[in-house]
């Protein structure tokens, strides 16, 4: 199990939003612009990185029975740290993301990775996992943000403080619904369908690989499995 392998899986095979379908709340709520996606994604990546490293470091020290409260305390600490830091040094972004920064703590990707990966693997691999998952999450919400902002607002904003914004010609009448809540569901649904389609094609081209319907897939269940090898939790 190499560093790269653990990192790469978060970018495609187990990309949080599209494959594992975790972190839906921030995905639907803040992806009205690319900028929000970048801010939220990087903040979540930072928290994920710190919490994965800490959980992995303390994995022999934390008793099983209190592991969930411990994970939550760890995630909450790092979330508050980034909340305060962003408020101090990136005030504009902090205003835009508003309530969603404190809510990183309940983002199930953080807890999911702590429980399913970091508490069972050494620090090096946990860091790789956090980087992969974090960047995968950032990438995914930026894609959703790009589609919604372009269609719903006729612009692409990378960072408004430095003026990195591109607008489509004024003749385009923005489709408002795309930046409202329904637009989030529509975009996400289409992207999930597209993702399944791509996977299906890939599976068909791989000889000897029988495509398993996702609902019969045991990878997402931890009930009958021992603690040793479970790399995905949903």
């Amino acid at each position, binding site marked *: 199990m190499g560093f790269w392998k653990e990192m790469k899986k978060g970018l495609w095979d187990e990309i949080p939003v599209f494959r594992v379908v975790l972190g839906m709340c921030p995905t639907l709520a803040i992806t009205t612009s690319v900028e929000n996606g970048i801010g939220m994604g990087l903040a979540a990546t930072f928290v994920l990185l710190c919490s994965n490293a800490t959980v992995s470091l303390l994995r022999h020290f934390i008793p099983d029975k*209190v592991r969930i409260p*411990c994970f939550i305390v*760890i995630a909450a*600490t790092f979330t508050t740290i980034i909340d305060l830091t962003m408020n101090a040094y990136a*005030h504009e972004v902090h205003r835009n993301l508003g309530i969603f920064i404190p809510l990183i703590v309940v983002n199930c990707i953080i807890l999911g990775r702590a429980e399913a990966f970091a508490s069972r693997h050494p620090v090096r691999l946990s860091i790789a996992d956090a980087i992969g998952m974090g960047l995968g999450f950032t990438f995914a919400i930026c894609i959703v943000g790009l589609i919604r902002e372009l269609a*719903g607002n006729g612009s692409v904003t990378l960072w408004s403080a430095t003026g990195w914004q591109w607008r489509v010609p004024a003749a385009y009448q923005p489709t408002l619904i795309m930046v409202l809540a329904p637009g989030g569901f529509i975009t996400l649904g289409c992207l999930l369908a597209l993702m399944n389609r791509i996977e299906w094609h890939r599976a068909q081209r791989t000889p000897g690989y029988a495509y398993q319907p996702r609902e019969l897939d045991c990878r997402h269940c931890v009930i009958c499995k021992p603690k040793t090898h479970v790399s995905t939790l949903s």
Partner: protein
Amino acid sequence: MKEIVKLIVVLTLISAVAGLLLAFTNNRTAGPIAQARKAEVLRALTDVLPPFDNQPNETVFSVDENGQHWTFFIARQNGSFAGAAVESVSMKGYGGLIKIMIGINPDNSLRRFKVLEQQETPGLGSKITEAVFRSQFENRSFIPDTWRLKKDGGEIEAITGATISSRAVTEAIRTAADVYARHADEIRRTGLPATP
């Protein structure tokens, strides 16, 4: 029994370390956060006020009226009154709270206003921040009855599809201007050396 002690000790230790880390971060960021907030207010003031050479965020006049707390920021140029700004809040926006900063000229007309916070529908209510709507108020002299939407008997054109947002902003501005008009003399005198 032994197990319970271990659980308690571990959880306490982790929480204590977390608490220490948070105290440290809070200590380090409190200053920059306060500064960023101040800079934000000053930026809004510079946007809505005529040119000034004093510190309007430090020359303030406060009054409680209409169940709200009003803080007027007073601008001065070469010692004489150059204008005032005031923050006004309306809870009647389509998405709840709307917070605006209003700049008032020395001749009691409205200079400009800026929306500080709003959660209106993007593309409809959010147009209260755009020049087409804003410019209606610019340099308009204060006659309370005309500062209403046309459908409420005033002279302000509402944004199509966003009557509620337009009404909330108009009302917030009218209330603030009203309070200003009642205290104009005191506001103009604020910050001047007391005359015997």
